[in-house]
């Protein structure tokens, strides 16, 4: 019973839309309209092409011939007939649908129809499955075909020649760069750029040789540029060490005119801004000049006195050794003398 109930629900059709009834006839009408439209366009294009391009023919803007007029008239009649036939088919389809709907209310008929509906549903499902499988196969085929075809086309296209033929200068002249920059989301763009990889591929020296820096700088509005560039984020992404490895610092310094650079620095103005008074005071506070003088003179005196004392000490030892040897006395003299009471004889 559950099955029957389920199928009874399934066979109930949704009410058709008023403006575009979902009937076979309506679908056929749309298909026919489309086909006829396409055929008409193709026919017109073919005719026009033959008229213009066929060797020896001249475009004829005069009145159409009788044959063409008849052909057009026949087309009109055929279209009218097709429209009528489709109207009739649609009417019949709607009547049949209405009849089935009405008959379904009779229990016996409904049971029969339920069986038929179940059969129809099964076959419909089978049809859906089969067509789905074929659709997938076709899509796979196309997915493989399109790249292959694209590759084949690209292989046959002479890109350099094509590029040479492009009016690049005119294209660039036509580009509204400020507007383009306004539309660019630079930070997001930078997130997607692998700067290190790009830098690896750039021959910096060769680029610098070709760049007229002054001309570039003349065209740049620094404030606007800096406003748009997230400098911190940019620096985060740049491997500074790797960049420095690639930059020939010596070569760069060779190109820097230091004298000219210094000539532009206003040293007087710079010094005028420095308040020397407090600096000198601090230096004098930190440096104990008196102490330095005392220490230096004291150390000179001490050094001289130490020298004299050490010399006297050596002579003491020398005399003592001679005397001890003469008297055949062994050992160092005065070892048993008590140590001094002072503790600051640190070496």
């Amino acid at each position: 019973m559950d099955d029957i109930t389920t199928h009874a629900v399934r066979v109930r059709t949704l009410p058709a839309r008023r403006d575009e009834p979902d009937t076979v006839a309506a679908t056929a009408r749309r298909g026919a309209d489309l086909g006829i439209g396409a055929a008409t366009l193709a026919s017109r294009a073919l005719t026009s092409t033959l008229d213009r391009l066929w060797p020896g023919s001249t475009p004829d803007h005069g009145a159409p011939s009788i044959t063409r007029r008849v052909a057009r008239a026949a087309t009109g009649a055929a279209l009218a007939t097709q429209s009528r036939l489709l109207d009739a088919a649609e009417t019949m389809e709607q009547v049949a649908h209405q009849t089935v709907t009405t008959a379904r209310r009779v229990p016996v008929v409904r049971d029969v129809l339920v069986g038929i509906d179940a059969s129809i549903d099964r076959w419909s499902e089978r049809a859906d499955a089969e067509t789905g499988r074929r659709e997938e196969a076709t899509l796979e085929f196309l997915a493989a075909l399109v790249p292959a075809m694209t590759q084949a086309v690209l292989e046959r296209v002479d890109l350099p020649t094509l590029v040479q033929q492009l009016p690049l200068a005119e294209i660039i002249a036509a580009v509204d760069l400020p507007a383009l920059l306004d539309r660019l989301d630079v930070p997001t763009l930078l997130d997607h750029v692998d700067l290190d990889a790009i830098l690896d591929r750039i021959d910096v020296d060769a680029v610098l040789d070709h760049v007229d820096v002054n001309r570039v700088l003349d065209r740049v509005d620094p404030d606007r540029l800096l406003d748009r560039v997230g400098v911190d984020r940019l620096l985060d992404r740049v491997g500074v060490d790797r960049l420095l490895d690639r930059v020939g610092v010596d070569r760069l310094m060779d190109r820097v005119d230091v004298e000219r650079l210094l000539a532009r620095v206003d040293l007087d103005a710079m010094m005028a801004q420095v308040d020397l008074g407090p600096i000198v005071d601090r230096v004098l506070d930190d440096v104990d000049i008196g102490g330095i003088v005392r220490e230096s003179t004291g150390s000179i005196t001490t050094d001289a006195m130490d020298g004299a004392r050490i010399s006297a000490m050596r002579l003491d030892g020398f005399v003592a050794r001679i005397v001890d040897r003469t008297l055949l006395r062994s050992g160092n003299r005065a070892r048993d003398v008590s140590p001094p009471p002072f503790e600051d004889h640190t070496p």
Partner: protein
Amino acid sequence: MSRTTIRDPRAAAAQGTPAGIVSRLLANAIDFGVVWIIYFAILIAVAAVRFLVERHGFRIEAPNPLVTVVGQWLVVVLYLGSGWSTTGRTVGKTVLGLRVLTADGKPLAPPRAFARALLCASFYPGLLWIIVSPKNAALHDVAFRTQVIYDWSTVPIVETAGPATS
């Protein structure tokens, strides 16, 4: 202000040991010079007093030899005795980095210091006993149980003298 470092390692090691003949002779020579200066100053002072009293002709007169000998002997005793009994040093010993102590390492009391000075000033050759003495002792060291050591420290003796260690 006290000295705390001695850069020469051998000098540092010799601190506290008895001083030899050369150091002590040099110190005595300096002291002899100092005594002469003091004695000359005394002569100047006497001349000044005489000038103030007699009011004519400022001259420094050389006293007769006996007065000179006795006077200088007296100056030596007073000079040496006062130095040894206070800091254990005279000017000469200060320059040479020496100090006079008792045999057991204490500062000299004034009586012993002046008695030692008396003997020293009366018999200079007693100093030569240092040459043969195993303890670098002069005759007055032996007589009064004193010693003269290398001591480059600048700490006053009254602050640093501690108990004897031997």
